[in-house]
């Protein structure tokens, strides 16, 4: 074995990574995120595919996705649109059905999650054979860009309360930049019923409940470059409701 070149072990491993990109009105961002994904997967040499799940965006996201498919190939870009906006949980179920990889990466398509971290996720996963690897804004070099003091305070406060009440064994519960073993994601998505921020939190809380192992990688979160990012009273109320539900049921 010593004679085997060590520079290309990644392609020999047989692992394939399916990136699920649920989109709704991401015409501006989709080409950029795809370009970045192709760049970093190309440089690191891992086998991959990108599954674009567009929920009938009226802004023409689907047409842009078709152009990208022509540029990068039908083996790399898979289009699995749905007729209308149906929520994140079902988007993942829909995406998993069509994903051919044995690992699934979920991330936002709005450029707040940078694909440069994906090779780190993959290395982390291999390091401990983790069932899921979660990006974290709250540890190491992780952080955020574009948040004011109020937003930071709410985020840190909510995270602290959640850590105290649920002791979930992961530092970033509401983040949505994660790598899962495909079977693990399937079993988790089936069990999770929450919406919005709470959905991601429920995923990781249930993962802990089912004794899945969790690895963490610090990430920088750059808040939406194009489009609006919101954190209003409604989000906070539904977060608190979700937290109480999880507290009483898990």
């Amino acid at each position, binding site marked *: 074995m010593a004679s085997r070149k060590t520079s290309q072990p990644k392609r020999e491993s047989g692992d394939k990574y399916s990136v699920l990109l649920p989109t709704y009105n991401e015409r501006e961002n989709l080409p950029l995120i795809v370009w970045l994904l192709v760049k970093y997967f190309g440089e690191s040499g891992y086998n991959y595919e990108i599954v674009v799940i567009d929920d009938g965006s009226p802004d023409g996201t689907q047409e842009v996705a078709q152009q990208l498919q022509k540029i990068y190939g039908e083996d790399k870009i898979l289009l699995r649109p749905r007729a209308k906006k149906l929520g994140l949980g079902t988007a993942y179920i829909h995406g998993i059905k069509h994903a051919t990889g044995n690992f699934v990466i979920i991330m936002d398509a709005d450029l707040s999650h940078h694909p440069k971290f994906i090779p780190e996720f993959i290395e982390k996963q291999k390091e401990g054979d983790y069932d899921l690897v979660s990006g974290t804004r709250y540890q190491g070099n992780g*952080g*955020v*860009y574009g948040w004011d003091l109020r937003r*930071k305070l709410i985020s840190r406060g909510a995270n602290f309360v959640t850590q105290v009440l649920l002791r979930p064994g992961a530092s970033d519960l509401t983040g949505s930049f994660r790598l899962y073993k495909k079977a693990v994601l399937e079993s988790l998505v089936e069990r999770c019923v929450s919406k919005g921020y709470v959905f991601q939190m429920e995923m990781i809380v249930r993962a802990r409940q089912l004794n899945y192992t969790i690895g963490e990688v610090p990430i920088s979160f*750059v808040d939406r470059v194009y489009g609006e990012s919101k954190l209003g009273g409604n989000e906070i109320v539904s977060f608190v409701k979700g937290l109480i539900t999880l507290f009483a049921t898990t």
Partner: protein
Amino acid sequence: MTKLLEWLLGVSLVLSAWAVVSFDLLELSLPQTYREVAWPMPLYLLVTFGCYSLATVGYRVATFNDCDEASAELQGQIQEAKQDLRKKGLKI
């Protein structure tokens, strides 16, 4: 066991230990000083935990990284991506 039950169990254990000492429920004839120390304990614990929480959240807000380089890097790459995609024939 749900987290709610874990909490209820923990809190009731602490409270019953506290009640036993403060009100001498089991007639252990503990010295009077024990009872005097135990009596305000729950309030002390609550205040201590509150201070700890405020200090922790405050420290974490103050040390929350602002990823200015990450944003600058992304902006540069967006320009690069747009040029490259135009070259490859993408029309928006």
